[in-house]
């Protein structure tokens, strides 16, 4: 099982991002997804900076993929997607059908988790259009992944979201700006104060969600450390870890050790529970609500 680091979903200061990927370069991760996938207003890390970070990671032996923005509304958003598609250096992860359209006919693109690929027929279609990797939707169950991969197109690998706050929804509205009664266009980049998302609790104090600008994440942390054997059996090749503001490298080391059999799944889960910014959940994989531990 390979490990991938998903795109940085939250908004961090430029220096923190640079430092983070320096550490990642020395971590036991195989693939790193880069780029701003959530909000086109975020500008701490310029496109050229992402490319430079990509070069640094390639030099460290990592595979680099650029993640295209998931929700496009304006011509400006489309320009960003076109720039990622035309980067000429790295593979690109399509996160909407506009990006898939632009990538169709090229070879080696990644069909991202927001494309809604739930069945073998639709996966075959994107494979014909040049995709060579499928990232399962976050709510994918074991049964779904196994069912799709039983009819896997040739030379296509499969990646499953395996650790991190779950990306659950996207909206045109910015919910972080809303909290501070700011307009989206004049948000003051409030999301930068919440490096793992802004926690929302229910009215009885139960951690529930985490707001990340236009994106809604789970409060709890998805963790498939105890499901690695089932993941392998279902045909998954790559486990995706979502960046968090602390201890991401330790998370990667722990999962690497668990994948290699150097750490029991019980010990891996215990170690990850101490590193995670929320409770560990794995309901989706077991066909249960996402905020349950099976």
């Amino acid at each position, binding site marked *: 099982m390979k490990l991938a680091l998903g795109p940085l979903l939250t908004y961090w200061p430029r220096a923190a991002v640079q430092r983070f990927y320096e550490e990642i370069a020395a971590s036991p991760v195989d693939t790193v997804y880069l780029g701003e996938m959530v909000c086109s207003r975020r500008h701490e890390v310029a496109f050229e900076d992402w490319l430079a970070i990509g070069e640094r990671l390639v030099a460290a032996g990592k595979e680099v993929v650029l993640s295209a923005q998931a*929700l496009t509304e304006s011509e400006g958003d489309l320009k960003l997607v076109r720039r990622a598609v035309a980067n000429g250096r790295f593979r690109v992860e399509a996160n909407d*059908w506009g990006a898939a359209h632009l990538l169709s006919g090229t070879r080696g693109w990644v069909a991202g988790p927001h494309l809604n690929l739930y069945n073998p027929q639709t996966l075959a279609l994107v494979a014909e259009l040049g995709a060579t990797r499928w990232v399962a939707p976050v709510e994918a169950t074991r049964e779904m992944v196994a069912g799709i991969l039983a009819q896997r197109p040739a030379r296509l690998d499969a990646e499953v979201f395996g650790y991190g706050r779950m990306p659950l929804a996207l909206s045109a509205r910015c919910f972080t700006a809303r909290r501070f009664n700011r307009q989206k266009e004049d948000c003051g980049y409030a999301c930068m104060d919440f490096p793992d998302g802004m926690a929302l609790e229910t009215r009885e104090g139960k951690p529930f969600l985490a707001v990340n600008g236009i994106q809604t994440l789970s409060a709890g942390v998805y963790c498939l450390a105890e499901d690695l054997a089932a993941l392998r059996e279902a045909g998954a090749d790559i486990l995706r870890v979502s960046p968090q503001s602390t201890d991401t490298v330790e998370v990667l080391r722990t999962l690497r050790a668990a994948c290699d059999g150097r750490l029991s799944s019980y010990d891996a889960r215990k170690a990850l529970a101490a590193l995670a910014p929320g409770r560990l959940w794995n309901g989706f994989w077991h066909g249960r609500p996402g905020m349950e531990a099976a």
Partner: protein
Amino acid sequence: MDLVCPAGSLPSLKAAVDHGADWIYLGLRDDTNARNFPGLNFDAAALTEGLAYAHARGRKVLVAINTYPQAGNWARWTAAIDRAAALGADAIIVADSGLMRYASHAHPGLALHLSVQGSATSYEAINFFHQHFGVKRAVLPRVLSLSQVELVVRRTPVEIEVFGFGGLCVMVEGRCALSAYACGESPNTAGACSPAHAVRWRETPAGLESRLNGILIDRYAKGERAAYPTVCKGRYAAGDDTYYAFEEPASLNTLEFIPDFGRIGVRAVKIEGRQRSPAYVAQVTRVWREAIDAWKAGTFALRPTWMAALDRHAEGSQHTLGAFSRPWK
């Protein structure tokens, strides 16, 4: 500009036809559509009768087959498409690309509409579905401003349909797993958001509580109007603030935009609410028919009687122009 109205049952379909809908959209009685609620939707007999009723009056019927099939149940979705084609549906509304390919090969004469659940928010995305499957019309997610809708209309040969009235998704349709996160079922895979079986209402000393699979979505003081507990319409605490973290419960009402829709080339306006009563369908259809006819005649002016009639059907009695006007921009 076509008026596209919902029908969750035969009486609703007849109400829509009788009150002036150009198109009526409906779903089959299973999880192949995004309003998979108990007691709702059409079996083969009801669909046959509904099609006959609509066609006899020169109206068209759309069958929504707009959820995402999975490996083990693909055949149920293709069977739904075959049935819609065999019974004479005028078009089907589909979200999944693989299913679109199936439909375009198996039934080349059957018009394809791209569902809002397909989550295509740009002309590049819509043109993908046009180029590969010949999609004729696309329903836009409720996230674009009027000028963004206009840009899409100008850059695609596909007819554009927008939501005009009814319940409002705060999140991008087809990109929301909040309900699955809380209770295990979401529109994409189960055809339902906050399914009734997972919802509980309870009077407590602290107020009326709404829960989804045990999770407290909101609590209402006496006199507060309660909203159906979808995750996005709840009140939560961030730090010391407890508030509608995503949006106040409100319904979309864009009646005043009819002239704008016409000017920018929107081809159809859709009324949400297959889960609503025949009376809702009748009243909302009647108002929108009158308003569109007034616009066509060049006499459009917003009438207070229209707004009053529509306000009666709003969530929390509130209406919003949604993303079209973007008050939060």
